[in-house]
């Protein structure tokens, strides 16, 4: 079982029940579980939405869209049923936070879904987990079954006239399915290819009905907002960035781990204090602040608060909260290549710029890393990435292009050091030839 890592600066809001056996429904109830949804039964839908707006909660899936605002887009009247969708596809490299919630506090996800359902008038929810998380699917399915058994799900929940159904769904290995419309396609039994927008999910999403789709952490946070109060929650963070979030520290750190810290927490402190600094007395070379899709930051760029606005100002993105730390030994070309290999592997292939662009970036970077490139190839790589930016059907293309542009811009010298047959002077690829039977 993976745990939240402790540190004095940790503010346990979402993680309030972590490590306390709350996957057990009785334990969850003892820890004030399912009280917040019952509060919400007494509230008008708009009042619920206003609370969430007031909390300053912004989506934890990557884009940081204000959650209350998103909910308010759902039309009050709809001929088709409305749905709540939990995005637990968690596949952005560097990100491993939602799994802790599913493992330690599955009922908070259910409770979050129920509150969202009350707010927008939905009667059915789906919890979509990536296929690799089989053990979590089992935990989540048990939690849902327990909730049904207690009458918290099903017909007339909590003795009210409300009905609510939840289905736990497994993915099957596809990063792109984390993209909201692709996730709906997958949930409808299709290939994970995104949809044309508009219409946006809030108007026509799953099965054509108005749909709220939120990251698992976002929805799991919702009950806590009602538990501690929207104002109080907002006050934990910075302006327009309410509360806390789970940061996943990984890479070259003494103490990698998932920590719950207030929004706007200083990045340098996060690396050197919370994460324990760089091991073996090595120097920091770069930080990827919000999962592999976010442009890299240089050591001199890390004196920023980790909230959506400040990181954006620094030219990158807070993303999914995956902070990947690179020490001085890392070859940035190799790192860029590994990043692009991922996007090449995960591109759904629907649109030309992403499908072909990631493939060519991977090929070019592979060649460059091995020393088979000349000066104009570096420009060619940048040209390719720049011509993907903003041109693709869904943001995955941007997610591949943005960091690539960043790597070339900020580490051009390292790229140049590989040229003309020199190969990798930093971390020459060892003999990675894999065995063959």
């Amino acid at each position, binding site marked *: 079982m*993976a745990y939240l*890592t402790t540190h004095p600066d940790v503010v346990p809001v979402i993680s309030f029940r972590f490590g306390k056996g709350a996957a057990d429904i009785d334990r969850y109830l003892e820890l004030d579980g399912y009280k917040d949804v019952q509060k919400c039964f007494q509230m008008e839908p708009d009042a619920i939405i206003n609370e969430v707006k007031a909390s300053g909660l912004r989506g934890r899936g990557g884009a940081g869209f204000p959650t209350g605002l998103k909910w308010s887009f759902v039309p009050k009247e709809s001929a088709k*049923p409305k749905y709540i969708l939990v995005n637990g596809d*968690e*596949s*952005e*490299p*560097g*990100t*491993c936070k939602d*799994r802790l919630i599913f493992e330690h506090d599955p009922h908070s996800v259910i409770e979050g879904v129920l509150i969202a359902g009350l707010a927008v008038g939905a009667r*059915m929810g789906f919890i979509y987990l*990536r*296929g*690799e*998380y*089989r*053990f979590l699917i089992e935990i989540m399915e048990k939690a849902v079954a327990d909730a049904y058994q207690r009458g918290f799900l099903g017909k007339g929940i909590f003795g009210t006239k409300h009905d609510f159904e939840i*289905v736990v*769904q*497994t*993915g*099957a*290995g*596809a990063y792109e399915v984390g993209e909201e419309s692709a996730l709906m396609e*997958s*949930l*409808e*039994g*299709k*290939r*994970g290819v995104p949809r044309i927008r508009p219409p946006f999910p809030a108007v026509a999403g799953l*099965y054509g009905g108005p749909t709220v789709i939120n990251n698992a952490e976002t929805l799991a946070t919702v009950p806590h907002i009602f538990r501690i109060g929207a104002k109080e929650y907002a006050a934990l963070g910075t302006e327009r960035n309410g509360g806390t979030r789970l940061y*996943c*520290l*990984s*890479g*070259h750190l003494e103490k*990698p*781990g998932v920590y719950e810290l207030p929004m706007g927490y200083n990045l340098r402190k996060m690396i050197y204090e919370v994460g324990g600094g760089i091991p073996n007395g090595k120097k920091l070379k770069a930080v*990827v602040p919000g999962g*592999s899709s976010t442009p890299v930051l240089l050591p001199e760029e890390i004196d920023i608060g980790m909230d959506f606005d400040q990181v954006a100002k620094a030219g990158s993105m807070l993303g999914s909260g*995956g902070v*990947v*730390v690179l020490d001085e030994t890392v070859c940035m070309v*190799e*790192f860029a290549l*590994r*990043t692009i290999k*991922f996007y090449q*592997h*995960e591109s*759904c292939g629907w649109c030309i710029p992403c499908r072909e662009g990631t493939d060519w970036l991977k090929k070019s970077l592979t060649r460059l890393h091995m020393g088979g490139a000349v000066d104009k190839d570096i420009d060619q790589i940048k040209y390719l990435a720049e011509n993907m930016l903003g041109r693709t059907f869904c943001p995955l293309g941007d997610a591949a292009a943005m960091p690539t542009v960043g790597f070339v811009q900020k580490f051009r010298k390292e790229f140049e050091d590989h040229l003309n047959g020199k190969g990798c002077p930093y971390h020459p690829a*060892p*003999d*990675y030839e*894999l*065995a*063959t*039977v």
Partner: protein
Amino acid sequence: MPAEKTTIFSPELAARFDRLVTLYPVKRSALVPMLLYAQDEIGYISDAVIAEVAERIGITELDVRNVVSYYSLMRTKPVGKYHVQVCTNIACMLRGGNELLHHCSKRLGIGHKQTTPDGLFSLEEVECIGSCSWAPAVQVNYDYHENLTLETMDKVLDEYRAKASK
């Protein structure tokens, strides 16, 4: 498909599928889970699995194949009893994921997407499996092994080998 009809699945799984298709507003929503659970039981998604799943959901085999070929967890060929999936994505790479993969390859004598002659192990280099803060990480079938070193990796493999001979 009514339960009394012939099925290639175990009675439990067949019963589960009978229920699964009723959970959603449209039957087809059960497709991805069905395929994955079928793969868990049969070992891979065989032509027979595709045919029966298509029949149960009421779509064409082509529809099923389009979906199967999209998802990287789904495979149309058997793998080893223990399918060792080594993450080499960025967080793992920084903490020795590549070395781990190479090590497994040497230890098992097989490369990416290959299976040992005894059918016990297969190896695959995979993308991030959501263990970045506990890197490097490996998934064997659905089980996670994290914070690995070459030594602990050996232990993991040995344990599986022992488990198989029990």
